[in-house]
């Protein structure tokens, strides 16, 4: 009995001690040394040393560490401490934090749709209040600035990282052995697929499963095809909702997709396996020994999912080529996605960080470590490590650059019915049912 009370008391005292410890830990602050905090292009001559700016985004682990490295030159020169917090549940948390009155100073949005929502609710600051458009033009092509612009003219953020989506992955060793050529047109791509089938290979590994987001792999394919069979104006009209899904233009794209996806000879495991294989495992059949498939269309980030030790490059285990054009008169379009930095609180030090992020210099620390393509126009190609330069070249050589349409469409479509529509289509539903259903969900 007495013993019990004693245990209870001990526990209480223990909690008190932990509490004290916690408080004392929290007081510990790192000091940042800046030799001359006013001598930099970002603070406008003010001394802001000792202040803190909190960024919140979806980069975690390795990505987060690389991003912190990229912020170091800024921290050293200004004395402003840039603190990055990351969470895989960014999309859900940023809304809660904004609504709860606790937004970060700057949010790193992985898709502009969510940023637009928060801008409309008054949580995101218009960058034009802080810097002129001509400043931004020094570091971004006009098309990127347009992609960050709200209908009312506001510029909602500064682009920071891009990933190239129009890539097809292949095992170079098999290509060399069999004498396969890299296709430069869609017809050559189909001919190559037929040749592979004739040689006893399965050409395509296509995988779509992504939990609640299953479907985005399919939307990426449709977007890539749309850019290759129609002029960019048609794509823009489609993104804006002026061109319906149930239109000859969009139907045509689905027919191109059907040609590859619904051909059981082409797809590893048959069309039925597209829905059940996790998207991240899609490139693994290419690097197995012997390879179980030879082609996989996925964005540049797929390299992160490859088994440890896999080498990427012309002499490595896996390499990529540009998803070929369909109509020569449309040139080589490129589909991209990207992360955009938006300011959510207004303080002089936040403005300084935004000015830094809007220059190519802020990406240097990351792109030198690899796995990064900067949207900034003022980033010279020779900053990139050799293995990343091909991605950057694809972006720079592109005749047309367009952003992932599903990220730009209203959430109900872009992260809703367009995804589920792709799932229904792959499950065998007719386009006559799928496309009108997507149109019906468009908020008008």
């Amino acid at each position: 009995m007495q013993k019990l009370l004693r245990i209870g008391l001990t526990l209480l005292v223990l909690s008190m001690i932990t509490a004290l410890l916690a408080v004392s830990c929290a007081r510990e602050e790192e000091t940042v040394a800046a030799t001359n905090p006013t001598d930099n292009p970002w603070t406008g001559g003010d001394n802001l040393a000792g202040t803190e700016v909190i960024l919140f985004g979806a980069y975690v682990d390795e990505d987060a560490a690389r991003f912190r490295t990229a912020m170091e030159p800024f921290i050293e020169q200004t004395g402003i401490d840039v603190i990055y917090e990351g969470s895989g549940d960014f999309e859900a948390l940023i809304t809660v934090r904004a609504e709860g009155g606790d937004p970060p100073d700057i949010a790193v949005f992985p898709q502009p749709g969510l940023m637009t929502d928060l801008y409309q609710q008054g949580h995101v600051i218009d960058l034009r209040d802080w810097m002129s458009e001509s400043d931004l033009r020094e570091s971004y092509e006009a098309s990127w600035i347009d992609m960050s612009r709200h209908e009312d003219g506001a510029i909602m953020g500064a682009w920071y990282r891009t990933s190239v989506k129009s890539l097809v992955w292949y095992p170079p060793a098999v290509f060399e052995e069999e004498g396969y050529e890299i296709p430069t047109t869609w017809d050559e791509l189909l001919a190559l697929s037929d040749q592979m089938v004739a040689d006893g290979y399965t050409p395509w590994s296509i995988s779509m499963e992504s939990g609640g987001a299953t479907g985005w792999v399919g939307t990426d394919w449709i977007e890539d095809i749309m850019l290759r069979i129609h002029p960019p104006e048609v794509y823009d009209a489609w993104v804006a909702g002026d061109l319906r899904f149930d239109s000859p233009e969009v139907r045509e794209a689905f027919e191109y997709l059907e040609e590859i996806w619904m051909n059981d000879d082409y797809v590893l495991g048959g069309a039925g396996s597209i829905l059940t294989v996790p998207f991240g495992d899609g490139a693994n059949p290419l690097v197995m020994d012997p390879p179980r498939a030879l082609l996989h269309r996925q964005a540049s980030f797929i390299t992160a999912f490859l088994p440890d030790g896999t080498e990427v490059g012309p002499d490595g285990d896996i390499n990529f080529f540009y998803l070929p054009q369909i109509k020569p008169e449309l040139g080589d379009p490129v589909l991209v996605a990207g992360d955009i930095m938006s300011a959510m609180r207004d303080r002089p030090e936040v403005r300084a960080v935004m000015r830094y992020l809007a220059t190519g210099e802020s990406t240097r620390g990351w792109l030198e470590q690899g796995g990064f393509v900067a949207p900034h126009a003022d980033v010279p190609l020779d900053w990139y490590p050799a293995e990343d330069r091909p991605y950057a070249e694809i972006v720079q050589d592109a005749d047309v650059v367009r952003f992932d349409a599903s990220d730009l469409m209203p959430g109900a479509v872009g992260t809703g019915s367009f995804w589920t529509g792709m799932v229904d289509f792959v499950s065998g539903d007719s386009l006559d049912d799928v496309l009108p259903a997507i149109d019906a969900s468009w908020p008008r």
Partner: protein
Amino acid sequence: MSDTAVKKPYVRPSAVAGEKKSRALIAGIPARAFILAIVVIWTIPTLGLLVSSFRTQLAIAETGWWHGLINFTDFAQWTIANYERVLFADDMANAFFNSLLITIPSTVIPITMAAFAAHSIAWMVFPGRKILFVIIVGLLIVPLQMALIPVLRVYTRHGINGTYLGMWLAHTGFGLPLATYMLYGYISSIPKSILESAHADGATPWMMFTRLVLPLSIPAIASFSIFQFLWVWNDLLVALVFFGTRRPIVTTRLAELVGSRGQSWHVLTAGAFITMVVPLIIFFSLQRYFVRGMMAGSVKG
């Protein structure tokens, strides 16, 4: 069915003495088999996870975990890299420490408060205690997700967002209704005669609470402690909202290890077993308390 199975045409004399016992044993076989089957079914996913946690990333992606058992001698598939990755990740020790800093007070505080509350609702007469109890039980139904934004606003206003205090208060609040309800159920079932005889012997209400009710409720307190400890220890949502990721705790750190695009999900297999260690220690050290029948022989004479 069991009757015909048990009745045998010939029973050896030596077996007669044990017949009653063996009959009971045989009659229990279907029930035991059923329980065993359920135990096996419930354990299979954990077993699969355990096998996967020792396999390489490529092996997990290529074949199911049962292939690992069937081709046990294929040593290329076995690795402890997943465990190394989790154990030696940056800040992991810190994360364990922070998790304990959050979990221990978040278990002790609501249990203490709930014990007082349950005792007063069960045994003290004051107006409105029934309504108070109904309100508390009603709060069980409110999902905590609904409270995130309002509570966050209050926290932001008072500057306790991202602090340990904030986490303790949040978990106390979210845990209290269930704690009070469970302890009430237990405390109100203590025979009235015990408390009455204590009162007759001149015990004050405080003495009755600390010397009778609390010791008698140990089984309920122990089982709720385990619930609450597990819930707080495994919590990711509340931690992400009120604590952030500036200081790591085990769950947020593990979620980060998975990578920006979930590419390293295979380390979660090892992560699950590593984080399981602390709750298991708690469980086994508290287990004897709720196995022990505390009420036996408490009323005498």
